[in-house]
């Protein structure tokens, strides 16, 4: 790299590289706003955030697992289980909304427990273990619903509906839930003792062991914690449309992975991190919404969003390379 020659701080290339992703983000924002003023209306911005709430939550769980050095292909299953257990608890067992929500989280935790058993107990790589869980979890849903039919519950208690449809001072509850989780994840993963241990384990397991870190215990906790988080997403999904749609969690998987890795690309040392993930999700949400509002043909829209994704990422990574070469 030729960075030593070029110490000129104010060269346009430097500026672009230093603030690359921010600039891309802002540029798109302005572009969408110019194209369709609706884009910047409060309601629409709120829509973006609200529409991203579930993905934010799933991506948080994914961030945690990626920080342990693994990956979780079963996040969608945890979401499905969260939704299924809660809906069935209410519909078939007449539970109140709060106990039902707890049952949902418990259901989601089963997915994490299975992952933990496979990864920690049987020493299967997280990738293959969670792929196994994905297959098993999909099958279980189909068996349970006799093929994958949705379980609809239009009459669900208001308390449960409010998980997604209520609001506090005008802010949708799902946005509040996502925000609270972002704060919790930020504190836990980036600021807490426990989070530091997670990162150490993820980066160099053997050194973490020698340093006295109980890696297995942490790994189990991470899988369970992540799956419960995804189950929260499931509760929101179920409350949103007042039903459980089997296998619907899968739709979030690739976006969640993308968001986490966008976030890591934004970090000066390439670590997965909560705020980066959040930026990644919001970027994806903004692009989708902005393109929707541009009134493009849906095929063109899909292609554009893919191309934007690739180029924005290229910039983000170029920017990171630059920064680490400069030793920030």
């Amino acid at each position, binding site marked *: 790299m030729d960075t030593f020659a070029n110490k000129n701080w104010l060269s346009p290339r430097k500026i672009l590289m230093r603030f690359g992703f921010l600039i891309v983000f802002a540029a798109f924002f302005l572009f969408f706003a110019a194209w369709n003023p609706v884009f910047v209306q409060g309601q629409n911005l709120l829509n973006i955030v609200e529409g991203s709430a579930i993905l934010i939550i799933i991506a948080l769980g994914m961030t945690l697992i990626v920080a342990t050095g693994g990956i979780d292909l079963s996040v969608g299953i945890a979401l499905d289980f969260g939704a299924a257990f809660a809906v069935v608890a209410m519909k078939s067992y007449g539970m109140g909304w709060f106990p039902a929500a707890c049952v949902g989280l418990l259901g989601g935790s089963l997915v994490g427990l299975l992952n933990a058993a496979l990864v920690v107990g049987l020493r299967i790589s997280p990738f293959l273990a969670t792929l196994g869980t994905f297959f098993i979890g999909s099958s279980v849903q*189909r068996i349970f619903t006799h093929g*994958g039919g949705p379980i609809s519950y*239009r009459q669900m208690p208001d308390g449960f509906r409010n998980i997604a449809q209520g609001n506090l001072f005008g802010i949708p509850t799902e946005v509040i839930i996502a925000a609270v989780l972002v704060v919790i994840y930020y504190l836990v993963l980036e600021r807490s003792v426990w989070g530091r241990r997670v990162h150490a384990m993820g980066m160099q397991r053997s050194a973490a062991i020698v340093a006295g870190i109980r890696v297995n215990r942490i790994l189990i906790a991470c899988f369970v914690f992540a799956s419960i988080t995804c189950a929260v997403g499931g509760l929101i*999904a179920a409350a949103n*449309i*007042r039903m459980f749609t089997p296998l*619907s969690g899968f*739709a979030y998987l690739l976006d969640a992975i993308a968001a986490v890795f966008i976030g890591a690309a934004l970090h000066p040392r390439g670590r997965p991190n909560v705020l980066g993930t959040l930026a990644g999700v919001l970027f994806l949400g903004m692009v989708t919404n902005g393109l929707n*509002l541009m009134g493009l043909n849906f*095929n063109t829209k899909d292609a554009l969003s893919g191309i934007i994704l690739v180029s924005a990422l290229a910039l983000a990574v170029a920017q990171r390379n630059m920064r680490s070469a400069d030793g920030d």
Partner: protein
Amino acid sequence: QDQLSLEGKTIGVAVVGTQHFWDREAFNGATSKVEDLGGTVVAVDGGRDNQVHADNHDVLMNRGVDAVISILGDGSVDPKFEALQAADIPVFSVDHPSPYVVNNTTSDNYYMGTTIGRYMADAMGGEGKVAVFNAFENSLRICGIRTGLWKYVLQDYPEIEIIQPELAEEFANAPEDARRQTLDLLSQYPEGELDAIHVGCWDQPAIGVVQALEETGRTDIIVTALDGGPDTMEIMAEEGSPFVANVAQQPRLIGQTAAENVARYFAGETLLPQTYVDVVPVNGPEEAKAAYKELGYGEIK
């Protein structure tokens, strides 16, 4: 009719997927009827992947079944049908016309498309803007017919404008995706600028559409769609539901009919290329309740 029998026959039943009520019902109808008629079922499921569904026909051929009932699918199945035909295994399709099948059992998709077009236009008072969820018009024949005829009818209503671009389902039949897209749509078309949302080929996305309307408190928009499964008819039956019209199919009956057609074929009867099974137009909450009962889904109070 009574002497129809599949005694001693092994019938392969291939279904593209079972997530959807319609698909599952057709599949259950076909398999249970085959068994009722004394036949043995070998079932395969494509898991909603058209290619897997197509490949599954190879498995059936290899198993040496006596006939195949093939439910849904796209053009990928045609070479399989051709091969089965060449191996003297007759194929009976459901909702997928093909030159290589003995018979295709289906709803009258033309009628469905035109009917929902008329109902929607009426409900709109013959004027206004409608947004449509499409995306499968080009890839699935049934969707092409239904959406195409809906558009054809709307040509008679020059005051109705179809909002461009059309909306695309990200995945077939995904309500949550439809809900989100509707929310975006609503912020783009404030109160008074949008009058209807139509789902072009089926109706699971309409659940998400209705949800979005309720969340945003928009009562100025009506919803129409096709299929009329129990979930959606329950919503239609609710008081003041925005979901005003639908055309219900009888998927279980379609599956059963396909199975009976197999038996008829083995009994030496000549079958027409297509067997149409009646659909039930559903206009408004009262008809929804009636159709719900008529189709054997129970009773809505």
